[in-house]
């Protein structure tokens, strides 16, 4: 396990930022976004050592950054953001993680809260039967042929829409329009393809979910109106990624990157940070395979969107669901920023962090351009989630990045202990939330008190100026793995 050798020094920059000054082999400082209360919990946490470890990697630009939902990960901390120079920098699977392009999609419906409340049990049952959940969840009748799976890896959400899973209008509302062009499907192993072929349109397990919610607070009326988020309006959040296919791509390339790092003489403070120069064959291969897996995740969320629409239509005649936005929170990709007065293309790694582009950015869909790119921050299943928009400050300070979620407060084991003897389904029902899950173990591990209050995390990114809060969503019904 990671053990702290020397205590990490933290210098307060202002009320929202703390610096880990460059020492030893660090090439840049670390900067953590937090609050005076939250930073106290972080002192002595191995996650801070991981921020410092990332700062050791060649070609890192600016600083090794951490968002307020930072916690102990593998390689990068969860909540870590780092950008690398296109010519002299590296790419690392440890900066993306196993669940490549795990992300969140938000749909807004034409339903009101009362509509769902009157038929909540039927809806949750229908969703649970429509979207496969759990480990190794697979569609019995929907297995992709090899040429189709290569099509998803190359085309992402577009591939799905071309086959009737949604409309072209959906694609405009997705980060990268739901397809990363750098994808090279031929670099994805046979084993990864085998793991993915029956998993398109499946939720998976762990912290993944599909949740029916309603808008319970509007904090920025104009932005909320542009996003179609009126008070009481029903929304659906989908949280999932590239499933077994992505896990296998990460597994495969960690091995080749360990070799590449040693070949290129890169000193690694943690082997999970293995990496290769972006300009090397090994680096380009990982970028191509990882981007292909990211496209699988976009395709997955696209198919699941259409499954959700069908389920809503079965339960509510005339129900419609439009895509508000779709964000990646485990990804590395090339993006362009103004750095020290010139435009530079850098490879941004976001490991448990969300892109948050400012108003006016060309990558933001036209209806939202005056307000900033939508940012979707799920909370726990009992409390609430948030919709934010990106800012100019995030663009300048954090490579256009912000937080991604609440972060665990209790370990899975402690959560299960805390759940023993309790009627969690009954407790959630009292809060007005119906739940269906593949296993009760997951419900215990994922119960509300296992997570930090996402409102605290969101308050920090708002105070730091990395995002603006637009609306709060409260859960009505949840399906989980």
């Amino acid at each position: 396990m990671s053990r702290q050798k020397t205590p990490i020094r933290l210098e307060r920059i202002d009320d929202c930022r703390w610096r880990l000054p460059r020492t030893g082999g660090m090439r840049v400082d670390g900067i953590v976004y937090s609050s005076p209360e939250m930073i106290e919990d972080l002192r002595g946490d191995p996650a801070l050592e991981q921020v410092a470890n990332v700062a050791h990697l060649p070609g890192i630009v600016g600083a090794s950054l951490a968002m307020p939902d930072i916690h102990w990960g593998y390689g990068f901390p969860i909540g870590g953001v780092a950008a690398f120079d296109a010519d002299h920098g590296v790419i690392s699977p440890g900066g993306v993680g196993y669940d490549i392009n795990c992300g969140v999609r938000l749909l807004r419906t034409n339903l009101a809260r009362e509509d769902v409340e009157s038929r909540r049990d039927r809806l949750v049952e229908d969703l649970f039967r429509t979207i496969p959940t759990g480990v190794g969840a697979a569609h019995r009748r929907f297995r992709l042929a090899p040429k189709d799976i290569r099509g998803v890896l190359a085309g992402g959400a577009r591939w799905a829409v071309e086959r009737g899973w949604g409309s072209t209008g959906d694609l405009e509302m997705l980060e990268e329009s739901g397809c990363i062009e750098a994808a090279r499907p031929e670099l994805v192993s046979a084993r990864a393809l085998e793991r993915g072929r029956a998993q398109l349109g499946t939720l998976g397990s762990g912290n993944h979910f599909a949740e029916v919610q309603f808008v319970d607070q509007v904090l920025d009326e104009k932005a909320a109106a542009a996003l179609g988020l009126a008070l009481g309006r029903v929304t659906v959040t989908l949280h999932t990624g590239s499933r077994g296919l992505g896990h296998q791509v990460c597994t495969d390339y960690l091995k080749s990157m360990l070799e590449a790092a040693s070949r290129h003489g890169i000193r690694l403070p943690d082997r999970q940070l293995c990496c290769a120069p972006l300009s090397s064959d090994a680096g380009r291969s990982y970028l191509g395979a990882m981007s292909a897996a990211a496209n699988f995740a976009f395709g997955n969320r696209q198919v699941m969107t259409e499954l959700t629409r069908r389920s809503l239509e079965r339960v509510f005649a005339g129900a419609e669901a439009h895509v508000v936005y779709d964000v990646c929170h485990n990804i590395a990709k090339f993006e362009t920023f103004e750095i020290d007065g010139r435009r530079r293309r850098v490879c941004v790694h976001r490991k448990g962090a969300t892109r948050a582009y400012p108003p006016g950015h060309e990558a933001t869909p036209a209806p939202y351009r005056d307000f900033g790119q939508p940012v979707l921050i799920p909370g726990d299943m009992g409390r609430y989630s948030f919709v934010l928009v990106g800012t100019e400050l995030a663009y300048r300070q954090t490579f256009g990045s912000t937080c991604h979620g609440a972060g665990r407060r209790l370990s899975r084991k402690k959560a299960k202990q805390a759940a023993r003897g309790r009627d969690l389904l009954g407790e959630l029902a009292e809060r007005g939330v119906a739940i269906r899950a593949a296993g009760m173990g997951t419900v215990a591990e994922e119960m509300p008190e296992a997570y930090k209050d996402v409102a605290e995390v969101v308050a920090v990114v708002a105070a730091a100026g990395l995002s603006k809060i637009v609306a709060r969503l409260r859960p009505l019904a949840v399906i989980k793995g």
Partner: protein
Amino acid sequence: MGFGWLSHTADTGIELWAGSLSEIFVEAVRALTQTVVDLSAVEPRETARVVCAAGALDLLLVTFLEELLYEFEVRGRVFAEADVNLAKADGSWRLDAILRGERYDVQRHGLKVPIKGVTYHGLELVETGAGWRGRVVFDI
């Protein structure tokens, strides 16, 4: 010989100890099974063979656990026992294992924690005064 858990916020690490190196790999089978399902419910009805290789012993442990995960997720097999043979040749370690277990049945074996990957974070496989000790962290 035996296994236990390492403390991580996500409770994902396993610790293995044994008198011999090959027993470490047998414990790895039991620890992985107990992480994902109920080990005591797995009966040795069928056998499967896993062969893998790596440049170093600790990397071999990761590769072996990855093979076991693949057997679980793709082939639907869980294992309770193993015979493990290790050999070193040309600077590389090779493992040849016969695993005993059965087809996964969620009703009987349950499901605890799904594992996304076997990490290199804090990975250890070392000889101690009393034998061998291994540590591996899973991403879940």
